[in-house]
């Protein structure tokens, strides 16, 4: 960005003292809004329920590690999805991109290049799909729903074409090892660390960078963003690239986790990611959302899944509970938004 040749009167020259702007770092904790606190409350309640119903199985270290590991894959996808939804868009193709990236990165040819080859391919395939989405939406004028629906269909198709429906086992030791207990650092699986890193970077990107500001502006009022001098189309392209990148990373995590690549990977991730973002407080119409909320949404979903599994309840009940939580979360948010 260039400045005008000679700003007539740069206001920043006469910046008044920052009276009362300085707040201690811990004030962030207290500024956490009601929504975040209520999500934390729900999560805490779930942990209590888990601890009471299945005290040994649920609170077991192995189980907690499993919960977090499972949350990592969908969590990384959700971070990308949150950005897209905040900008007023939607990405229905995330599950398909995860599947395509995971199978492309585990073909025999790719595995010849070892660890780096698999990681590189997963990320590049993710970015490539995001690029196509972004170009179609930002410069082709397509509605995000349609463009990413097309990517969903063709991505899944291509993944099936590559694998012929077979599971592609990973033979690269370095990749397999990353999922084993030996690689845990202080009891934390590397996958979970990747998830944590993506979350932190996503949070910083949304709250502390011009990229985040522009994403919110484009989602909140695209016309105003354009008339404020923001390149709305380029911003939209970047957002779908970001979502694709997150899918590529998630695909790699999934490869590590399952030791394989399958064309059925990432099934219905799009719905889980959207649901997690929504219960986390992201407006589906754009202009508002938080990474913290989305990540808490993911953790809530995965924890429910875990508790139900431990209590030997059917998947059907589990899905009904998920649906109920989405409805409850949105109703509560509407209540807090109006008061």
């Amino acid at each position: 960005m260039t400045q005008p040749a000679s700003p007539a009167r740069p206001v920043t020259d006469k910046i008044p003292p920052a009276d009362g702007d300085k707040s201690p770092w811990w004030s962030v904790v207290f500024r956490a809004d009601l929504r975040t606190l209520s999500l934390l409350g729900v999560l805490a309640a779930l942990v209590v329920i888990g601890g009471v119903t299945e005290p040994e199985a649920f609170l077991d270290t192995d189980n907690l590690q499993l919960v977090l590991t499972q949350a990592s894959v969908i969590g990384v996808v959700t971070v990308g999805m949150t950005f897209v939804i905040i900008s007023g868009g939607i990405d229905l193709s995330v599950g398909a991109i995860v599947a395509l990236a995971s199978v492309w990165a585990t073909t025999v040819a790719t595995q010849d290049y070892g660890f780096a080859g698999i990681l590189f391919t997963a990320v590049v395939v993710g970015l490539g799909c995001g690029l196509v989405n972004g170009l179609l939406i930002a410069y082709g004028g397509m509605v995000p729903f349609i463009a990413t629906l097309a990517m969903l269909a063709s991505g899944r198709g291509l993944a099936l074409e590559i694998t012929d429906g077979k599971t592609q086992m990973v033979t690269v030791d370095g990749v397999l090892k990353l999922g084993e207990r030996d690689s845990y650092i202080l009891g934390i699986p590397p996958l979970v660390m990747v998830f944590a890193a993506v979350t932190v970077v996503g949070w910083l990107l949304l709250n502390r960078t011009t990229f985040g500001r522009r994403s919110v502006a484009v989602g909140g009022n695209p016309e105003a963003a354009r008339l404020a001098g923001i390149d709305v189309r380029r911003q939209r392209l970047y957002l779908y690239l970001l979502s694709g990148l997150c899918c590529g990373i998630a695909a790699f995590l999934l490869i590590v986790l399952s030791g394989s690549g399958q064309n059925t990977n990432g099934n219905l991730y799009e719905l889980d990611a959207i649901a997690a973002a929504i219960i986390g407080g992201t407006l589906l119409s754009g202009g508002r959302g938080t990474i913290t909320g989305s990540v808490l949404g993911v953790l809530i979903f995965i924890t429910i899944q875990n508790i139900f599994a431990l209590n030997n309840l059917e998947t059907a009940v589990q899905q009904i509970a998920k649906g109920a939580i989405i409805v409850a979360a949105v109703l509560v948010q509407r209540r807090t938004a109006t008061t």
Partner: protein
Amino acid sequence: MAPEPPLLTMSGITKSFPGVRALDGVDLHVQAGEVHCLLGQNGAGKSTLIKVLAGAHQPDGGKIVWRGDEVTLRSPIAAMRLGIATIYQELDLVEGLSVAENVYLGHEPTSAGFVVRGRDARASTAALLKRLGHGEIDPARLVGNLSAAQQQIVSMARALSHEVRLIVMDEPSAALDPDEVDNLFRIVGDLTAGGVAVVYISHRLEEIRRIGDRVTVLKDGRAVAVGLPAKETPTREVIALMTGRNVEYVFPERPMAVESGADAAPPEPVLSVQGLARDGEFAPLDLELRPGEIVGLAGLVGSGRSEILETIFGARKPTAGQVRVDGRVLRPGSVRAAVRAGLGLAPEERKAQALLMLESVTRNVSVSSMSRFSYGGWVDRGKELQAARAATRELSLRPDNPSVPVRTLSGGNQQKAVLARWLLRGCRVLLLDEPTRGVDVGARAELYTVIRRLADEGLAVLLVSSEVPEVLGLADRVLVLREGHVVHTAPARDLDEHRVLDLVLASGQHGPTLTKSPSGPATTEGSPAS
């Protein structure tokens, strides 16, 4: 007037929305069998008033008396039951349903309470359409396949499918050809002859003269004239009521240099526009703007004022001509090029085109100058807040806390937030489109002072306003526009309100239209990556 009690008496209606008082004690009296015209500029409160009458908005205060009884219109259905039907400008038809289904939507003739008697509905729809002079419309056709004029007829048939005593028509002629307008007038005549009252909203003054009985003029949420005789009141008096001032302002003084012509050579123009034109919107325009100068564009809505501003700003692509800033030609149709060169626009529709309503004042102010307090994309939020605070204090924006959400501000302070955005950017040419629209009357004088001070400090300002006194009071030089042409240019002190109204109204065959151009803002997208 008529001895019988009025059909409808609305008195002292008030209605506020966050940030603005839309209706400030409006009276409206309608007799049975009359055509009552409702006039006013965009934003005067007409839409709010008819929505109150239609039961779509609940008034904050005031009284509605219908046929002698005080009533509360809780919902559109309640209004409909009393016999008040409204035909909105944006027709509220369901395109995927047939004509008959639309006409009887919500009150379908049924058997056993829920089986729609489609044949009956079609038959009575055909009869209604015939009465409206459009028997050729097939009741079974999909509404989506009809022309705009035919859809309007369907909308009217729907109104008549109820037992109506009062029909509100919001700019019914806007989408119609001349002979369709004649048919519309015939229908209105039939209705009133049958004792039905029509509240008719139009910007076309000659129509009002043709079919109107009485006129009520709204301005700034108040009725400035109630029940004027439509045929006898001179056009210029009506326009003066709509565009004039009911409160006298003291406008800030012009600096001596501009006022007296100055001894020293005038500064080089910062903005120069040469032959800029857009087909069908405005004719080739030449304009120079010097630092410290306020130039006003005076003209009625539809004279091309807003289009000119948006084209200079790059939000619309010109069909001819160019815009230069400091002698350098701007890329046509690129907002980003304009912003980078130092232009700023405060658009007419503040909420839709300028503000991020969910965000704080700070973020609304900083959005165009992120590079000023970010390093490699990393925002220094302390610096951002300080900069926003400096800019908003400069304009005495209230409350003096840029962290509050922008939607909680009053209209005038929201406008200041937009101005602060460009101030912070280091903008050198400010394009103001109706800067006091939606700003409470009392807060306007302060905004005028702010605008004049910015000019005194070296900004060049191009001002568009529907209010002639505003242009005359604030601008140094005035360009008078009529139907896309500049018909007169003069220093503001050489003009007065009457002179400008004469110039604006000196009509050719078209007569004055105050029609708002239907086009939304801008069709060109922002510039691609640069």
